[in-house]
């Protein structure tokens, strides 16, 4: 019984009203709103969020692999899957791999994980998919795209849904692309893209898998299809014999946007959140071909309903106050030069990974004092190297004291500086607060930890933990 053991999703809290984009450029708004990754988020940090949401309640020690799928990896050369696995505090003796360069990267990772588990090489593998694609300013893409991530934990036992069948088609077509030189997504004439790219390939994969598995449209409770916009999938569903009103999964274009390679997985999570035991789901992705899956929901589905998924992510939102902020978040405008002079060091970041990435503190075996970062000599009793590491990233905390700093610079001042007291032994964590309205910050405010991008001094990305109001 190979299938999905757990799911998680992450939609960044910032939303941009599409009318704001239309007003900025004097163009037509496609309506609704899109999600926008905060200035300190990227595909890697969003994948971490989804992974941790998915791991809630699961045994992290049992995960034997982690895949990261994205067309917007922060690195061209360096495995983000290894970073995500470390931040998610997984074992080191696991298989990590990046799936890139295709909108099908997410489902390719799922298929690879599935085959690996079926072969008996691993018992459970986590797949994360995240995207933060840039549409050219003023283009329709800029409005349609959204940012987000999803994670699926696949395994061979205790599954909430089994993956019954898989079918893929491959088709070389330069319809939507970015070269190694491009910042923004390019595409060919839209009618040609729709007819010869999207519709043709999706039909081939969906018809193919139904034929292969001997199923018909009425055998599916829900059909989850990649869609580039709010309409194309409806016509496609109709032409395949599905009832768009009852069977078609909401693609979240009006509330979130097209989240790229993460979209099929995000929508699958969305479907699983509503699913009942016995439901059958058809999933299909798109990108130079299509991957299709037949998924059967099991009785265990109820146990996953407390996960942080899509529904919660869509419900939590803060509206961006201006289009200019979006441009600043994505570094599409130049901001005043920063006076901050940091000393980036790859070797320091590597050496301090246990607390920088894994967010471990030290708990003294003698006096029980919990400290962050890890202290070799106990602050309370001076015992040396006698501590156990404790993970603080999944512990709640409270603001002990704070400041709203206008001097510290950054993309979105004021910088909210906080001292957090963790529920884990009262450990103190000095960190910045993100995803908040500075006016809501107060002593005692409950917070949770979130992994964020700090800076790119030294030519590489420096990540660390921040806090945000517990939601």
């Amino acid at each position, binding site marked *: 019984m190979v299938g999905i053991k757990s799911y998680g999703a992450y939609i960044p809290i910032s939303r941009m009203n599409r009318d704001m984009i239309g007003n900025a450029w004097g163009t037509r708004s496609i309506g609704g709103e899109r999600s926008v990754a905060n200035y300190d988020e990227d595909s890697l940090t969003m994948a971490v969020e989804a992974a941790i949401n998915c791991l809630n309640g699961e045994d992290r020690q049992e995960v034997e692999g982690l895949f990261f799928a994205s067309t917007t990896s922060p690195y061209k050369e360096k495995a983000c899957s290894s970073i995500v696995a470390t931040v998610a505090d997984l074992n080191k003796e696991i298989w990590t791999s990046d799936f890139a360069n295709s909108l099908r990267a997410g489902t390719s990772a799922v298929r690879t994980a599935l085959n690996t588990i079926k072969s008996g090489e691993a018992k459970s593998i986590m797949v994360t998919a995240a995207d933060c694609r840039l549409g050219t300013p003023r283009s329709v893409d800029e409005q349609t795209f959204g940012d987000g991530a999803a994670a699926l934990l696949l395994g061979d036992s205790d599954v909430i849904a089994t993956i019954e069948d898989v079918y893929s088609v491959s088709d070389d077509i330069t319809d939507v692309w970015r070269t190694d030189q491009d910042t923004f997504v390019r595409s060919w004439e839209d009618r040609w893209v729709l007819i010869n790219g999207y519709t043709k390939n999706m039909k081939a994969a969906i018809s193919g898998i139904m034929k292969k598995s001997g199923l018909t449209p009425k055998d599916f409770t829900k059909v989850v299809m990649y869609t580039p916009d709010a309409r194309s999938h409806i016509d496609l569903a109709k032409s395949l014999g599905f009832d768009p009103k009852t069977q078609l999964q909401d693609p979240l274009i009006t509330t979130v946007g097209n989240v790229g390679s993460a979209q099929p997985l995000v929508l699958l999570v969305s479907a699983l959140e509503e699913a009942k035991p016995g439901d059958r789901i058809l999933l299909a992705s798109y990108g130079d071909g299509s991957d299709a899956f037949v998924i059967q929901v099991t009785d265990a589905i109820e146990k996953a309903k407390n996960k942080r998924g899509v529904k919660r992510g869509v419900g939590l939102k803060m509206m961006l106050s201006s289009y200019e902020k979006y441009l600043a978040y994505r570094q599409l405008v130049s901001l005043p030069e920063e*006076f901050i002079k940091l000393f980036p*060091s790859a070797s320091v970041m590597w050496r301090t990974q246990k607390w920088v990435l894994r967010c471990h503190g030290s708990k003294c075996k003698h006096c029980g004092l919990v400290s962050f970062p890890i202290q070799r000599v106990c*602050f309370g009793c001076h015992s040396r190297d006698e501590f156990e590491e404790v993970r603080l990233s999944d512990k709640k905390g409270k603001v002990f004291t704070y400041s709203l700093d206008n*001097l*510290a610079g950054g993309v979105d001042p004021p910088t909210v500086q906080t001292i957090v007291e963790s529920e884990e032994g*009262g450990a103190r964590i000095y960190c910045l607060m993100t995803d908040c309205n500075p006016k809501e910050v107060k002593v005692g405010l409950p917070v949770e930890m979130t992994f964020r991008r700090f*800076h790119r001094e030294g030519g590489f990305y420096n990540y660390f933990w921040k806090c945000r109001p517990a939601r």
Partner: protein
Amino acid sequence: MESIKDKIAIIGMGCCKFGENWNKGPEDMIIEAAYEAYEDAGIDPKDIQAAWLGTVGAHWIGMGGLALADPLKLQGIPITRVENWCATGHEALRNASFAVACGMYDIAIAVGFEKLKDTGFPGLGVGRGMHPVMEMRRTAPSSFAFIATRYFHAYGLSPEEGKETIAKIAVKNHKNGSMHPKAHFQREITLEQAVKAPIIAWPLGLFDCCGNSDGAAVAIITRADLAKKFRDDPIYIKGIGLSQNSMMPHFQPGFDWTGFEVTQIAAKQAYEQAGIKNPRKEIDLAVVHDCFTITELIIYEDLGFSPKGKAKEDIDAGTFALDGELPVNTDGGLKCFGHPVGASGLRMSYEIYKQLQGKGDKRQVKNAEIGLAHTLGGHPSVSCVMLYGNDLG
């Protein structure tokens, strides 16, 4: 453990004009302060047997003692460069004192300076942590804003009450600073101006923050028994305390953010050496580390001038005003005299030195015999307290 009390005498001091000294380099400020001190002590530069230099800005002035040897042409004598955050100026004097007290040298010079206005940054330090990310965007105002937020919370002050209380400290220090020709800022301000100033790091506004200044200050010391050969009114060191934290407060378990243990410990060390039992009664004036107005408030409590949580009552009563029971920051403090980091401990000592000699001009504190200088540095994580008297015994 022996006490430093009455072993060291300051026989000469100098201090350059503090401020935005765009047209002066570190060397100009050091020369200005040192030659004032030479003249004050009545010595020749050749009489100096050893020197201590305090500055924090190694990355733009270079390492070692050259920054002092060069301008003053101190050829051949030992120069030791020290750094201890904002206590650096005190640290130069402290180490020079120990060397002279042990008999190694008869005459030593302690020099502190900082040239902040060549950095291009208008505030005191941002994100200069020891780790690539852990202190990202830590600024001095935010570290002390943590104190203000927590102190207001702990003692039930509304933001309005809290801000008004600390604004009174700014008004007092501006008034004092207006009477010192060498101070960076020499203009009085109103309470309303202070309260309504733009926010730097909530709840701290512009007038809650000290001057970001250039400056240099110098002390020349000798053994107490030799002092009268140089002048009739030497000033004696009565006690030196220095205390260091072992974890930055930001991460320290249980740190209460309403006061600094390092100040309390440094003060205890200095009081014990000097034999001071009741600091509020026995100290005649204090020049303390008011990097932010809230810092001065908690210093009143940490030094034992006010009971814990009660500083507001003393502030409201004018206890620390120039004509109050215990005048604090008679020269305007860091707030108005300015805060060229490495110079500050020596600048504070300069004010006390002059006051104890009766040379306080319009700011003169009546019958001043015992004075205290206090620095607080780092995250903060270090504090130095020095006590001076104008008589032996």
